[in-house]
C-alpha cells in the first residue's frame, strides 16, 4: 500500500522534499487533467499553454501546502485542485489586465466552464449558468460533502480512491457519502432556481 496522503502532507508541511515530490507524482496527472477539463478553454483563450499553465499552478499550490489543514475529513486532492484552479484564474486575470486594450481580451466568464461537444452559443450559456449554480451550491455544502463531489465530478475518482482520500473505511461508505452529498446538492440547486 502507498503511504497515506495524510502522512505525506504532514511531512511535506515540514519541508520534506521527498514527501513533496511523492505527493506531486501522485496527483500531478490527475489534477492537470481536471484543470484542463475545467479551465482548458479559458487557458487557451488566454494564450496559455494548457499543460504548462496547469503544471505551474500545481507547483504553486504545492508551495502553499502549509496553508492546508488536515482536519481528518478533508481531502488533500480536493484542496490541491481548488488551490491550483484559483492559481490559474489569478494568472488569467493578471494576463487579462496586461492585455486590456488589446484585441485578445479573455472571456473571464468562460473560466469555469466545462466544454461540450459542438456547443451552440445558447448551449454554452446554459451550461455556464448551470455550472455557476453548481459551484455556488457546492460552497454551501459541508466540507466532506463538497469534497466528495469534487473528487467524483472533476477528478473522476473511483469509490475506492474516494475512500482512501477521505479516510473512509470502505468504498461503500464513499458511495453513501456521495449519495448524501448529491441529495443535498439537488436540494441546494432546487433552492436556486435557474
Amino acid at each position, binding site marked *: 500500500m502507498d503511504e497515506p496522503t495524510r502522512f505525506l502532507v504532514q511531512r511535506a508541511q515540514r519541508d520534506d522534499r521527498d514527501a513533496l515530490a511523492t505527493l506531486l507524482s501522485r496527483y500531478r496527472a490527475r489534477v492537470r487533467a481536471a484543470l484542463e477539463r475545467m479551465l482548458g478553454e479559458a487557458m487557451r483563450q488566454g494564450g496559455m499553454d494548457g499543460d504548462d499553465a496547469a503544471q505551474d499552478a500545481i507547483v504553486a499550490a504545492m508551495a502553499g501546502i502549509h496553508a492546508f489543514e488536515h482536519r481528518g475529513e478533508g481531502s488533500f486532492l480536493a484542496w490541491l485542485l481548488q488551490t491550483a484552479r484559483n492559481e490559474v484564474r489569478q494568472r488569467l486575470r493578471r494576463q487579462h489586465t496586461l492585455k486590456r486594450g488589446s484585441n485578445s481580451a479573455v472571456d473571464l466568464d468562460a473560466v469555469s466552464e466545462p*466544454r461540450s461537444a459542438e456547443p451552440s452559443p445558447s448551449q454554452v450559456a446554459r451550461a455556464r449558468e448551470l455550472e455557476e449554480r453548481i459551484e455556488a451550491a457546492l460552497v454551501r455544502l459541508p466540507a466532506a460533502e463538497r469534497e466528495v463531489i469534487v473528487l467524483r465530478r472533476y477528478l473522476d475518482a473511483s469509490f475506492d480512491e474516494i475512500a482512501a482520500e477521505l479516510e473512509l473505511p470502505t468504498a461503500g461508505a464513499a458511495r453513501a457519502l456521495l449519495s448524501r452529498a448529491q441529495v443535498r446538492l439537488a436540494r441546494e440547486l432546487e433552492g436556486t432556481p435557474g
Partner: protein
Amino acid sequence: MNPDERTEAAPESGDDDASARFARFLERHHDGGGDLEALCAEHPEQASRFRAWWRLLESAGEVRPAPPDGQAFGPHYTLLRELGRGAQGTVWLAEDRRLRRRVALKLLPHGATAAPDALRRFLREAEVASRLEHPGICTVFDSGACDGQAFIAMRFVQGETLAARIARARQAGSPLDVGTLLPFFEQAALALHAAHEAGLVHRDVKPGNLMVATNGAPVILDFGLARYVEGEVELTRSHEIIGTPVYMAPEQVAGGKALDRRCDVYALGAVLFECLTLRRPFEGPTQEALFRQILTASLPDPRQWGVRLPRDLVVVLHTALARERSERYATAAALAEDLRCVRVHAPISARPVPRLRRLWKWARRHPATATSVLLTLASLAGGTTVSTWAWLRERAAQDAYRQLADARLLREQLDAEASLYPGRPDRVPAMEAWLQKAYPLRDRLPLHRARLAALRGEALPYTEEEAARDRAQNRAAARLGELEQRLAQQQRLARVARQRGTRQVMEYEAAATGRQIATLRDRGDQRLTFHFESLEQRFLHDELTRLVADLEAFATTVARVEERLALVEETGTPQDLEARWAAAVAAVQGNARYDGHRLSRQVDLVPLGDDPRSGLAEFALLGTGLVPQRGEGGDLACGPDTAVVLVLLPGGRCICGAQADNPQAPNYDPAAEPMEGPPHEFFLEGFLMGKFELSRAQWMHLGGSARVSRAVVAASHGVDESHPMTDVSWVTANEVLQRCGLQLPTEAQWEYAARGGSSTAYFTGDNARGLEGHVNCRVRAPYASADHYLFTAPVASMRPNPFGLHHVFGNAAEWCRDGVLLESSDRFEYRAGDGERVTPGEIETYAVRGGSFLSLARQLRSAARGMREGTNRFVDVGIRVVRPLDWPKARDR
C-alpha cells in the same frame, strides 16, 4: 446515516425521509442498480420530489442518464442489457435493428464527450480500428455521437476475458494449462501483428482486453481506445497507471520515447507470464517501486515458485520482456512464430543470454538505466516546466538509482566471485575485471552509510519499550547469554580436567569464548528498531540497512580477491610445466605402485616429481601458494607461503578398523574399542590427498575466512600461518573446499592413507614408541621427545608416514566426510570408489581422525576414531584435503 450528519443535513424536518430514501436510491444507482420508477411507485407522495432531484442531478452530470433495458439508443440500436462498466464507460449488449445483429455498444462517459478534440481523436481511431478485419480483433462496426453521447458499436464476442480466467485460476491455485495457452497467445500475437501492419499500436494490452471466445480463440478488445486514452484524458490515463502498469513496457513507463509495436509485444509477454505463473512479472509495494522494478529489476525465474516451464518458453518470455526493446522480438509475428516452435518442439529463434554476458550488458546499460529512472522520476515529479524542482528530482533520482543499482550490482559481484576460486593463472583476467567493478561499489559504502544515518535521523523517536524490546531481541544479546552459559560450563570442565590432569582442550575453548563475549558486549546496546511515518521510508530503510551490511562484508570479499590475484601473479606458472607434465604422465604410467593407471593432465596441478622415500608422485595445487622445490634429499622446501601439496595415492585393497577379539584375524589390537570394529575391507580408487594438513595461509587462499582463527592465533604463542588451520567447523570446511573442487577424506580414505600400508596398531608398528619424531601429541616422553610444541606445529614439520604424509597423527585432528553413528561398522553400506559410509537420516556428528596435539598415545592408533558436532568449531580439529581423481577405474584386484 449517522445521527450527527442527519442533524447537519436536514434543516427542514419532514424532508428527512425523502432525503434519506433518495440517498439510498442514489447509492444503489452508483452501485449499478437503482430504479427511479420503482422508487416513485413505492412512495407516490414523494415521487415528484424524487423526479425533480433526479432531473437536477442528471443535468448537473452527477448521475448517469442510464437508459433502461430495452430502450432505444440512437436511430437503430436497442439496448438489451449492461455487460460491464469501467473507467472508459459502460458496455451494453444491444441489437442493431437495421441488420438484426447483436453488438456490444460502448457508451463513453460524458466527461470524455465534453471535449471536442478528444471526441474527434476518438472517432478517428475508431475509424482506423473499424478497417481492421481480423478474427482476432474485435471489429468496430460503427461509431459516432448520438444525443451528445459518444458510442462505439462493435462485434459482440461471447466468452470471458482472460482477466476473469486468471482470477479463477488464482482462486483454484493452479496455473492455466500451457497446452491451451500456447496456441491462444500465438493467435493473439498474430492478431496484434495484423493491427501493427495496419499502423495501429494497441498500447494497453492486458488480460482485461483479451477475450477468450467460446471457441477458445483470442479476441483483442479496445483497439484504438488506448491511444485515445493516452492522448487526451490524462485523468483516465492516471487511472490506468494505478490500475495496470504491470503490463507496461519500460519505455512506456519511462516516457519520452515514441512507442512502437514492441510495447505491445512486451505487454503480451507480460500477460503470458502472468497466465503461466499467476504472478505479475514485476510487482512493488508502491507505484514508484513498481516502476523501478520494471525499469531496473531482472525478470524473475518462474522456477523459484515451483513453476516448471519448457526451457525454450522461458527464453521466449525473456525475449518478449527484454528491457531494451531492441532486444525484444521485433514483431508480434516473430513472437507468434517462436510460440509455435515451442508448441511443436521445434528450435526457437530467440537465444538465451549467457549469465556473464548479461552481467556485462547490465553494467554497460548503467547510463541507460540511470537515464530512464531519472526520466521516470522526472515525469512523476513534475515534468519539464518545473525548473525549481529540478534539483530535487535529480537528487531523488540519483539516490534511488545508486541504491538500487548497488544492491543489484553487489548481488551480481558476489555471484561472480564464487567462480574465481581458487586463484589460477587462467582466471587472472576474470579476477581483474571483477575488481574493476568491485572497487567503485566498495567505495560507495560511506555514501550509503551517510544516507542511512540521515534516514535514521528522520525516524520516529526511540521509545523505552522499543529499547527494551531491542535489548531483548538483540541477537548479540541473546548470543551473549548463550556464550556466558557456555563459558561457565567450559570453565567448570577445565577445572575438572586440570584436577585429573587430562584434556586441556577446555582451557583453550574457554579462552576463545571469553574473547567472543568481550566483542559482543560492545554490540549489546545497539538500536535495532526504527519506525518511520511513511512506508516508503521504511522500505528505503530496510533496503539501505541490508545494503550497508552487505557492503561491509563485501570489503572483505574484495580484499580476498586481491590477495588471491596477488598470489597468482607472484607465484605464476612454472616455465617448464609442459615438460613436467610429460614426465609426470610417463612416470605414473611406469610406476608399479600405480598398477598401470594412466594419469591425464590436470589444468590446476604442477607435477613435483616423486617423493624419493615414498615413491609416490606429488603435485602442487595452483593458486594456493608458491610451488615448492625439491631439495637435495628429495624433500620439499616448504614455508608459510607454500602451495597445497597433493600426493597421488594409488588406492587398492585396504582393511580399516581394528578388533580386540581374535589375534589371528586382521587388524588385531588389544586396545581396540568397539566402535573401531569389526575391520572392513575396502577397495579404494586412487585419489590425491594433502601431504600436509591445510595451513592457515592455504585456508585463506582457498577463500576461507581468517577471522575465524584470530582468537586462537592470539591465544597461542608461536602459531603462525604455517600452522594447520583449526577452529573451523565441518560445515564451513565443506563449503570452502567444495568451491575449490576439493573434499574432506572419507574415513576409509583417511585410514588407508594414515596406515601407509601397515595393518598394525600404529603405522610404525604395535608399539607407540615408534611414533617418536613423527607426532606432535600431548604425551612427550617417551614417545615424542622431539615435540616442543605447546599447541600445533607447522604443517611441514616432523617426519612423514610411509606415504609421505606429515602429521596424520597428532598436531591437528582431521575432519572426515562421513557422519558417525555409534553402531558396528558392518551395519552400514559403503560407496564404491571412495568408501564413503552411507548413513541414513540426518547426521549431526562427523568423524574426526588422527588425534591432535592434545591426544594420548591410544588416540594416535590408526583405527582410533573421534566424533564431533559438524556445526561447531574446535581448536584441535583441522583439515586434510582430498581431490578426487578422474582416472580409469581400478581393475578387479
